[in-house]
């Protein structure tokens, strides 16, 4: 088990190095950041001076070395636009994104898996067909459009929920949270629902396919032949059998929900990291883009690492070093 953890940790570290290189090349080496920093009428001498100061005259690998060294020390540079350390900027926006993402993915998983198992157990029932229809819809409708419709329906037409913003927040552990106040909660409903729908559709399909396959498996037939009740079979066999793909997807989707939060935050003016990155992209605020990408990559690597560990806890075959065939 320890060897397994070390092996995965090394892999994760390697991935981070590669990711930081790609991000560095992608964002810093493409185009010329000097043009953004200096006025267009600057003299050649001034230009040279800025290039030297930014280290742009150094060979590429040295530039990367400095960049990586700064990263390791937590120095992500300063935002061109906000003129403050990027890490501080992102850190301030992070709680808003985190609460949105976590609430929606938990909602999506719990409801999605329940509906999916129901549809998998009774594949021919009318409710199951309805569930599957909804999941295809949720899968197909682009999430920004769902956001518009949610606003149009619940904010503009019925006026039940606010159309944007974060509402009242409350300080807990030195961080502002929305979901702990009634007003904040009413603000989070629509964006969270918007973000959750796609994931829910995905969870439904996954849980249904897994359940259907598990219900037809010899394991379930054998359990039935032993007189074990359907409820116990569902709870102890099926749930366990479908848990592996669901945990995989949960992990992967946690990351992609973070990414999709970009869209939802833009539509609902939710002051999170996603809104920040869209604003930064449109004005090409490179340090913010780089920091966001590196941090996102880091989150992804950590999630994958955790998913691997959870796998090993669930599946004894992986734990003992045998890969599933």
């Amino acid at each position, binding site marked *: 088990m320890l060897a397994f953890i070390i092996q995965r940790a090394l892999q994760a570290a390697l991935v981070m190095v590669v990711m930081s290189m790609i991000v560095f090349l992608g964002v810093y080496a493409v185009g010329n950041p000097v043009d953004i920093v200096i006025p267009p009428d600057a003299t050649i001498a001034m230009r040279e001076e800025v290039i030297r100061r930014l280290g742009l005259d150094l060979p590429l690998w040295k530039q990367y070395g400095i960049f990586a060294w700064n990263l390791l020390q937590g120095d992500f540079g300063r935002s061109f636009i906000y003129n403050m350390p990027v890490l501080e900027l992102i850190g301030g926006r992070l709680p808003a994104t985190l609460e949105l993402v976590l609430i929606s993915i938990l909602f999506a998983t719990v409801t999605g898996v329940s509906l999916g198992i129901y549809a998998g157990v009774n594949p021919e029932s009318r409710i199951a067909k309805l569930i599957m229809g909804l999941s295809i819809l949720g899968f197909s409708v682009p999430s920004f459009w769902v956001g518009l419709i949610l606003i149009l329906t619940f904010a503009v037409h019925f006026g039940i929920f606010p159309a944007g913003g974060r509402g009242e927040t409350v300080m807990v552990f030195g961080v502002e949270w929305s979901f702990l106040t009634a007003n904040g909660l009413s603000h989070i409903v629509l964006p969270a629902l918007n973000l959750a729908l796609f994931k829910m559709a995905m969870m439904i399909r996954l849980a249904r396919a897994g359940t259907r396959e598990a219900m037809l498996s*010899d394991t379930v*037939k054998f*359990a039935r*032949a032993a*007189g074990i009740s359907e409820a116990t079979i569902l709870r102890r066999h099926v749930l366990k059998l479908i848990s592996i793909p669901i945990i995989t997807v949960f992990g992967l989707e946690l990351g992609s929900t973070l990414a999709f939060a970009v869209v939802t935050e833009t539509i609902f003016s939710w002051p999170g990291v996603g809104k920040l990155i869209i604003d930064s992209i449109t004005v090409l605020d490179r340090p913010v883009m780089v920091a966001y990408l590196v941090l996102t990559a880091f989150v992804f690597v950590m999630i994958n690492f955790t998913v691997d560990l959870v796998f090993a806890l*669930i599946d004894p075959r992986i734990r*003992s070093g*045998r890969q599933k065939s």
Partner: protein
Amino acid sequence: MSPVLEVRDLRTEFFTAAGTLRAVNDVSFSLNEGEIIGLVGESGSGKSVTGFSLLGLIDAPGKITGGSVRLKGDELVGMAQPDLRRRRGRDIAMIFQDPIATLNPLLTIGQQMEMALAAHERLSPRASEDRCAEALERVGIPSARARLKAYPHEFSGGMRQRVAISIALLHRPAVIVADEPTTALDVSIQAQIVTEMKMLAREFGVAMIWISHDLAVVSGIAQRIAVMYAGRIVETGPAAQVLRQPRHPYTRGLLDSMPHATAPGQALRQIPGSMPSMMALPPGCAFAPRCAFASPACTSVPELTEAAGRSWRCFHPLDQPAQEGITS
């Protein structure tokens, strides 16, 4: 002595989009305490579906549409699912072909055994563990108590099947349906399992229905043999007699196509043709199109003929012995 299991005119049909498929067609047999019957046939002959029907485990689009299954005097056909569930595992149990597929890879053997135990008995964790360890010991698994914490993949194929057998034996059922229980195992292990199951059946007085496509395996364990073809039992009788002197041409064909029925160097004698689709059975005897003895009479279904403890469904029963008997 009244039989523990009595099956009369059992009929199971599958209602698929492509048509109705009669997988089990008027199947009748009975089983005394401790008796082992071999149910033999090609794949698709309906022998497994017969096994599942006995436990009431036919999923949609399948349905038992007729007949009766009496277990220790109680009628199972038409019994409500909750009542049926209470009989499964306790009075009638089942073992499957591939133990790697029947055991849940993500649960320990102990967890799975305790689940099967808890389905019918409320026991303290302690007592439950004792029972499981005892059950494992009985099927010849060494250091049973420690092995309860092991996962299926940590066992060999033969050992896994023993675990499955011990689960089936947990509540000492009157009847066990064994669906090709040795087919997935190595030949040397096969023989071991067959011998042990024979002993266990005798020890506990468990009656067994041993489903197999392999006449050689069945001849080693069953006292009686029932041969199935296209959903019907075409011949039954004491194992030795059926093997020595088959009455139905299909049984004869099966015997002839076994490797040691042919002299070395000669081609195996196959039964010509293949089993008809269950969707489109020929009228009358389903074997007629492949039968060398078929006559115009064969376009109607032959009645069951019974004589001297044997029975067959054929207008042209054979009377000469098979080329080379199989002695069990």
